[in-house]
């Protein structure tokens, strides 16, 4: 889901912290750099949760606009990454919830229920299989797996979900099992 060169390791936390502080102080170049550094990872995260590549850009934009507005209120710049993915997760879950509500009031015709991905959206058997398997999971479990893929620790995820580390491990185990059951590259 991400390349190792883009992932911030511990040694770069200070640099990231400085960059976040500059962005908080109103440095637009630093803010822009933050967006550029994280846009691809957030896009992947959004796609994993929503399963729709045509909504990736819109949702990613919503997430980063929220980030720009809320960044001055972030008290711990070193925890920026964890904070950003919590923001992204909550935005995606809210989006799916609103979509579900909309469908209750405006029921779609059967032919509109599962609109296929745009042309060229699914370009390999592995990706197709993963998308299919993720679609069988609950949105919250997809978000959980996406957070793990993003390198979030169990403790960070527990904080995000306001639950215990043991509960995160148990849910993660179930989500992985469920994903494995549906992840087969030769069945569809």
């Amino acid at each position, binding site marked *: 889901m991400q390349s190792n060169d883009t992932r911030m390791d511990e040694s770069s936390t200070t640099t990231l912290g400085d960059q976040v502080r500059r962005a908080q102080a109103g440095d637009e170049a630093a803010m822009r750099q933050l967006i550029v550094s994280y846009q691809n990872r957030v*896009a992947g995260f959004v796609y994993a949760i929503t399963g729709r590549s045509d909504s990736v850009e819109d949702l990613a934009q919503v997430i980063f606009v929220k980030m720009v*507005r809320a960044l001055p209120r972030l008290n711990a710049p070193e925890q920026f990454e964890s904070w950003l993915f919590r923001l992204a997760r909550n935005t995606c879950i809210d989006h799916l919830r609103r979509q579900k509500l909309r469908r209750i009031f405006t029921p779609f015709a059967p032919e509109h229920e599962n609109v296929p991905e745009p042309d060229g959206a699914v370009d390999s058997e*592995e*990706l197709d299989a993963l998308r299919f398997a993720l679609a069988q999971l609950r949105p919250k479990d997809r978000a959980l797996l996406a957070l793990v893929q993003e390198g979030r620790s169990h403790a960070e995820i527990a904080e995000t979900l306001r639950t215990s580390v043991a509960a995160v491990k148990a849910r993660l185990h179930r989500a992985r099992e469920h994903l494995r059951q549906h992840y087969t*590259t030769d069945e569809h």
Partner: protein
Amino acid sequence: MNTEDTAWNELGAHAASRLSPGFADRVLLEARASSSPLLVAHFAMCAATAGLCLAAVALYRSGTSAADEARNLAGWSEIAAQTQELDQGL
């Protein structure tokens, strides 16, 4: 790297390819637009219009209720005068 890891990487790469060039600039523009003084001015204008409407309704109501009260009082005075005349006639 197993096929699932490959798939996750492809998923990330595919999602990243959906972002059109200039994404960061558009985000900054949107963030600036939605928190600009223009928006604050827009809300202030809405609040002022709502205030004016409320004041107009209150003024109209106070005017009509004063006129109604005067009319009612005149009616009661007339009835009182007629009652007095009747009492005197008896």
